[in-house]
């Protein structure tokens, strides 16, 4: 099989998955509990000081919390206490990956219209190479969370594109 080298200059690094949460609010549009500290707009992301995505509004009334920092946990707890939503521990559901380098965008453009998907958004829920995924812009490329059962084939699909 000939490889289709569509892009060079990218790296794909699987990250170690730690504790991962999803926060789901009761209903959408969102209530008043989501004003301060919450990335409330569709596709909005709250980044931590290290420029890592920390709270991603990837679906209506649903946030991904990749590595809950104490202040994020406090924010979630306050919303739970206010009866606005609920936290689900989804450790193991998402495989985090880092896709970086000048060729990173071209890799994603093989699968989807990534420019439009991230137009005026910091993150998006997408299907990449048939794998359910969440993409967020980050320093030097993209943070990806791919559904864990699909991760091996996702990595194979991306590596097939490399020179």
């Amino acid at each position, binding site marked *: 099989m000939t490889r289709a080298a569509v892009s060079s200059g990218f790296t794909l690094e699987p990250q170690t998955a730690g504790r991962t949460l999803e926060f789901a609010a009761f209903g959408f549009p969102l209530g008043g509990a989501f004003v301060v500290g919450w990335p409330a707009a*569709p596709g909005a992301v709250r980044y931590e000081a290290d420029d890592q995505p920390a709270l991603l509004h990837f679906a*209506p009334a649903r946030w991904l919390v990749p590595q809950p920092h104490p202040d994020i946990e406090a924010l979630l707890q306050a919303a739970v206490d206010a009866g606005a939503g609920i936290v689900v521990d989804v450790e193991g559901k998402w495989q985090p990956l880092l896709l970086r380098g000048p060729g990173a965008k071209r890799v994603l453009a093989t699968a989807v219209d990534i420019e439009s998907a991230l137009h005026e958004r910091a993150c998006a829920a997408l299907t990449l190479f048939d794998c359910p995924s969440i993409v967020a812009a980050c320093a030097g490329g993209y943070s990806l969370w791919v559904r864990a059962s699909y991760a091996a084939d996702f990595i194979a699909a991306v590596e097939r594109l490399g020179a």
Partner: protein
Amino acid sequence: MTRLVCPFCGPRHLREFEFHKTLPAPGAGEFASVYERVDSLELSVEHWQHVGGCRGWLLVRRNPSTGAVLDCRLVGGGGAA
């Protein structure tokens, strides 16, 4: 010519969306709401799901003759936020 704009995700390709059903007439009884569909040339009111994206359920109003989408909103929670 059907182009769906997800109220949450923005414009996405049709292949990301899954058609579920054409809605029955308002006020239809239990039997009618399962087995009877409004079959109109001008207006079809449908449920779709954005399975390839945010998984939101969409209420789509569409002209089935032309495929033109008249309105697309989240079933449970209003239009574009």
